[in-house]
């Protein structure tokens, strides 16, 4: 594995129980890459993420994340889940959510001042400071998504993985989230993002992969075909 390769998958198959979702996946993600992940629903995009994050054990093949097994390497990854799946009645403020992001670095011990400052910085750059004390049930979809991005950034990760960060957001909220992402990208952060929003990513992503049972790199020409209804999604 090259030094600047953060994720390396070779012949990886994975799924849930006897159901194999992904077959023979070969993929490398390098430092500084912005990789967009597209594909049809049920094609295995989220399964790919879960495999990289060590939440699913692959049934075949080898996978290395940050030079080690996914269960270790994933602690250096900032993960942003889909915000729509969370219990909005959970008693937590936006700040509480962000502070959870310190756990990968702090371990079980109380967080030190440097870690808290890191969380403060993450809240400031994502605009969470403005609503930090609000309960998550009172936040808009965009605000909650920003809180999740801040949570991912709080641990100062080497890479961000975002699962449809702009899904079900209205245009204004999407613009807010995209603005944060663009800033992160401009700093050279490695980003892997699941999206259905092809229109917005064609010129931005360094690489685009299409996941449908297996993984295939997609060229800009393919993107045009997708937009013209070529069925790649």
């Amino acid at each position, binding site marked *: 594995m090259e030094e600047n390769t953060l994720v390396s998958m070779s012949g990886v198959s994975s799924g849930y129980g006897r159901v194999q979702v992904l077959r023979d996946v070969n993929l490398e993600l390098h430092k500084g890459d912005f990789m967009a992940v597209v594909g049809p629903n049920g094609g295995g995009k989220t399964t790919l993420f879960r495999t990289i*994050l060590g939440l699913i054990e692959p049934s075949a093949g080898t996978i290395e994340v940050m030079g080690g097994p996914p269960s270790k390497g994933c602690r250096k990854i900032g993960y942003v889940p889909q915000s729509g799946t969370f219990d909005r009645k959970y*008693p937590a403020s936006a700040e509480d959510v962000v502070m959870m992001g310190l756990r990968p670095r702090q371990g079980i011990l109380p967080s030190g001042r440097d870690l808290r400052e890191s969380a403060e910085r993450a809240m400031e750059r994502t605009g969470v400071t403005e609503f930090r004390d609000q309960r998550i049930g009172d936040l808009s979809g965009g*605000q909650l998504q920003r809180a999740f991005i801040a949570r991912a950034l709080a641990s100062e990760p080497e890479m961000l993985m975002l699962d449809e960060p702009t899904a079900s957001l209205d245009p204004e*909220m999407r613009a807010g989230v995209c*603005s944060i992402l663009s800033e992160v990208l401009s700093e050279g952060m490695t980003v892997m993002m699941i999206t259905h929003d092809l229109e917005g990513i064609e010129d931005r992503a360094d690489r685009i992969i299409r996941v449908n049972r297996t993984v295939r790199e997609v060229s800009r020409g393919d993107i045009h075909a997708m937009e013209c209804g070529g069925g790649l999604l």
Partner: protein
Amino acid sequence: MTDIIDMLEIPLIQNMFLATALACVLCGVIGTYVVVNRMVAVTGGIAHTTFGGVGFAYFAMSVLAVSWMTPMAGALLFGIAAAVIMAVCRRNGELREDTVIGALWAAGMAAGVVFMCYTDRSVIVPSSYESILFGNMLLIDSGKLAAMAVITAAVLAVTAFFFRDLRIMTFDANFARISGINVTVLDLILHILIAVTCVMVANVVGIVMIMALMTIPAAMGNMFSHGMKGTMALGTVYALFLSVAGLFLSLYMDTPPGATVVLVIAAAFIVAVLAKRAASRAGKNGSRGVRGTRLPYRNQRFPEMQYL
């Protein structure tokens, strides 16, 4: 009223109030995890399985002459066993969680009845199922109270130690795993904490009514608090206040204390729900209907994103 004040000088009545206070603290803290993690059915299953443990303890004392197997110890044994089985089944996913809960719930009750059939009735202190199922706080002696105090301290210490990890796990289990938390072990610990709390609360309100004290005060706390600690604190305060009110009412009306406490808590819950609904309506009427916070568009690399 003078009679009630006089009654407060009776040691058993004092024990009743102290035991209630200990149970309320646990209900406020552990009940919060039960409510936010939607584990009410799990709590019910564990609570009813402890009846098997109580029956087993009487059986062990009477037939097997095992003197140390007190009803509380038996209940702890069965409760923790049920908690472990539920946690393991939840993890494996081979069986539906509600199926496991239902099976343990019924089997625990049935085991209690069968064990008691083989028991010398003179050994059974409450002398009736009702006292075990619906509680009899007047049976709490100083030895039991001391045991409850030690168990309460232990549960609170474990909860404090794992507080942040429990919060992360109950909010987002996947993120907890990614963060390096051993979710399997922590979930098992949470189930065991619930089991121990169930046994504690059973001493106060009985097995059947555990769920009321374990869920309603914490649910009320969740309605009016922004964070986990606030929910726990409010849940404890509500549980304490309402339980003490229920105990005084039971002394005044000469009704079973456990049942009276539960009815007072249930009534307060209805009031809280109505109050929360009224407050929400008032808030909606007064709001401007705009929630989003505008961010400065600093995006220079992908300017077109601004117009999405």
